[in-house]
């Protein structure tokens, strides 16, 4: 006699990690979940920062201060800068893409310190909410994202203190992330994977993380001293108590100039991943790209005083920082020429990811040219703190980093969701973003050269027409978000099924399923010794017997 007992399913291992959509709201330690948390959280703050920018451009439609009170205008511009830098670009180009991609690229199943990683992310929402809520509770900080004393000591203290707390939390998050990236890239590489075989984004993140770890603590220390000046009436930066305000500027820019590279180096890395795949060519000049990143890191640490050419810096200091700053153009130029060479002779798919990447190159080249000009003391003395500078740095951080964020979303969306985004909507999104962006910021160069200072709620009426052009551009940029949002949301359920590797890419994140399983690979991680091994080898095409035009005609 046999007794049949109902088949008992083996007890599922009780996971401490929630599954399903809830894990995106949890203290998950999965690097992919954390990456998406960074991304979505960052994008929410991008919308807030964008609304603040819209308020600024609305105020500037007319030359008089008529849209909002003047002190609110200063709160809005402070929040706009802080949100866009610390809650959108830095967390997204580092935290979102770094967390998602770096473990794949080094052949690891997660980051080196998964719990630290989750802590780093979960510092961001409270810090962001704190910052935004300060506007409603006590009034936000009014002294700009630079918070120069004595202005930051004399504006209402509560808003300024909340701003400092928020930035300290965000800086802490950034440092935790930086340590994690350095450890992951250097120590968690799959056996057999050499440093010079890593995808370029790893090098960019290594360089960025070095900058984060070296410079962010300086900002933290400075802001703590500033908060002592505010609440305990110490005199570090208070000239009335014997303090020195220029020292604050030195300390602040010691972080905040490298912060520019913290925002653009990862973007450089992402573009280096996207272009070779869609051009079907190897990344041109891998070794020089690596050295350029490291040169930018080194030079980026010794250029900060170019933000202070009008602050009474001595002539030798002006000279040194001019030369150091201008020389950053050399390694940066190498990277841009290498991307152009990667495009040259490729089989370029003109999809949204490539269009946004090329838009980035165009915008960043213009921002770089104005940057070299701004490094020249005599030039800077006229346009410092004007709309010329506003135009310049938006060409760097929006035309540069944000364009790359969009390119990367189009490129990696199929990896994350398993579905493709709509290409027509994507190209439309690119078109209005590119036109709107350039319409918004190109005229501002002229405004600055002709006498409009930055951070003003009212201005000389002769600048009204150009400001209105600029505001129309800003409106276009706002509108361009709509097709993008629709595309992201609709494609998640209706997009064409992408398959595991829709771009025929060779980098390791594509050598698994889309979306990837929890520990990235079923079985062992693949060893990718040459992540850019695209292209037909030269010996298969006899170069001597054909001219260049034959090469591309034959390909048809």
């Amino acid at each position, binding site marked *: 006699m046999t007794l049949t007992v109902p088949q008992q399913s083996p007890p599922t291992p009780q996971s401490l990690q929630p599954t399903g959509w809830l894990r995106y709201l949890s203290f998950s330690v999965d690097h992919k979940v954390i990456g998406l948390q960074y991304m979505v959280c960052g994008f929410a703050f991008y919308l807030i920062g964008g609304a603040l920018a819209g308020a600024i451009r609305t105020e500037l439609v007319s030359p008089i201060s008529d849209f909002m009170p003047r002190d609110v205008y200063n709160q809005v511009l402070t929040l706009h800068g802080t949100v866009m830098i610390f809650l959108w670009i830095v967390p997204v180009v580092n935290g979102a893409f770094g967390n998602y991609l770096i473990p794949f690229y080094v052949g690891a199943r997660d980051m080196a310190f998964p719990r630290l990683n989750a802590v780093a992310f979960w510092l961001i929402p409270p810090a962001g909410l704190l910052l935004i809520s300060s506007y409603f509770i006590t009034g936000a900080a009014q002294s700009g994202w630079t918070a120069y004393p004595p202005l930051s000591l004399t504006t209402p203290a509560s808003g300024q203190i909340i701003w400092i707390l928020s930035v300290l939390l965000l800086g802490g998050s950034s440092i935790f992330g930086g340590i994690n990236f350095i450890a992951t890239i250097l120590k968690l590489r799959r056996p057999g994977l050499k440093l010079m075989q890593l995808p370029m984004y790893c090098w960019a993140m290594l360089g960025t993380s070095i900058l984060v770890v070296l410079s962010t603590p300086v900002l933290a220390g400075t802001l703590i001293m500033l908060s002592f000046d505010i609440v305990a009436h110490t005199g570090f930066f208070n000239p009335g108590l014997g303090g020195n305000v*220029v020292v604050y500027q030195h300390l602040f820019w010691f972080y905040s100039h490298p912060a520019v590279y913290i925002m653009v180096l990862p973007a450089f890395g992402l573009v280096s991943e996207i272009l070779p795949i869609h051009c079907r060519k190897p990344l041109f000049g891998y070794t020089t790209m690596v050295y350029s990143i490291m040169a930018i890191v080194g030079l980026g640490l010794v250029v900060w005083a170019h933000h202070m050419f009008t602050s009474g810096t001595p002539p030798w200091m*002006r000279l040194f920082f001019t030369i150091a700053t201008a020389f950053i153009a050399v390694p940066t130029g190498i990277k841009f020429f290498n991307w152009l060479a990667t495009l040259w002779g490729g089989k370029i798919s003109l999809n949204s990811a490539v269009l946004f990447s090329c838009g980035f190159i165009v915008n960043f080249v213009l921002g770089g040219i104005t940057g070299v000009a701004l490094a020249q003391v005599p*030039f800077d003395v*006229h346009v410092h703190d004007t709309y010329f500078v506003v135009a310049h740095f938006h060409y760097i951080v929006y035309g540069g980093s944000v364009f790359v964020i969009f390119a990367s979303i189009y490129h990696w969306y199929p990896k994350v969701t398993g579905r493709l985004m709509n290409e027509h909507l994507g190209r439309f999104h690119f078109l209005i973003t590119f036109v709107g962006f350039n319409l918004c910021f190109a005229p501002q160069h002229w405004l600055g050269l002709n006498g409009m200072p930055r951070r003003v709620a009212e201005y000389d009426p002769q600048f009204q027409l150009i400001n209105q052009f600029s505001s129309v551009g800003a409106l276009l940029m706002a509108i361009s978000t709509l097709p993008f949002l629709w595309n992201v949301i609709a494609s998640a359920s209706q997009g064409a099924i992408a398959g595991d590797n829709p771009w025929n890419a060779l980098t390791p994140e594509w050598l698994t399923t889309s979306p990837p399983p929890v520990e990235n690979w079923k079985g062992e991680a693949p060893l990718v010794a040459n992540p850019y091994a695209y*292209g037909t080898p030269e010996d298969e095409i006899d170069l001597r017997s054909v001219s260049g035009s034959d090469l591309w005609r034959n390909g048809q």
Partner: protein
Amino acid sequence: MQIPSAIVTLVLGMLLVLGGLWIGQNINLLPVDASTNAPIYDELFRVLFSIGTILFLGIVGLIIFSLVRFRRRPGQLGDGLALEGNLPLEVFWTAVPAIVVLFVGLFSYDIYERMGGMAPLSHGDHGTSMQTEQRIWGGIGSSEISTTPAASALQPLPVEVTAMQFAFLFHYPDGDIMSGELHVQAGRPVTLRMEAKDVIHAFWVPEFRLKQDVIPGQPTLLDFTPTRPGRYPIVCAELCGPYHGGMRSTVVVESPDDFNTWLQANRKPPVQEA
């Protein structure tokens, strides 16, 4: 007939350089120049604008050309050429920007020197007696370039500038005149001794191409020589509070006669003042 690509490239490159030079020299983006260092500044600007235009148009042209010519056509499969790098090419585009940057740096150094930027900070020649107790910071100025005999024969006009939320006040020690507008004489050097009462402000006259932060606790000297009579805006360029955008004044550059008339009309009688 096939034109060799080297020649096409050469011709395009020459057109690009000439076009960039033409744009840089002929498109004016700057307001009128009204001080001795403004024309020097404009010279630098034209050089930077030319180089920038050449670089920008060249790179944009290359991208558009690549995107059109090397685009993937429908039905096209396969990869591009497996070119992983080219050392001579890399050396070339490292060296060329380095040379350009070096040239720009040396040129702007020269400009800077001609503007008087390398003058020592202590400005001993102005005989300011307070140097001993306070360190005085100097902005870029034009004291060095007013070397024409007529200009250097004139004693610099000293003016004390007080920046506060949200106004500039100008005090002429010579005659004890207090004014909300800065009156200066065309062709005569001016030395501003600037002090801020509360927060950082910046003194900017776009037509003079001059800007200097006015920093509390750090008296600052700024020298310049106005040239072109007229009324020009003085703008505060450093965020200084809610009314920062309204913190403006006017500099009036006048002929010597007009300036002296203004000086006499506003000069305070030494005794009567309470």
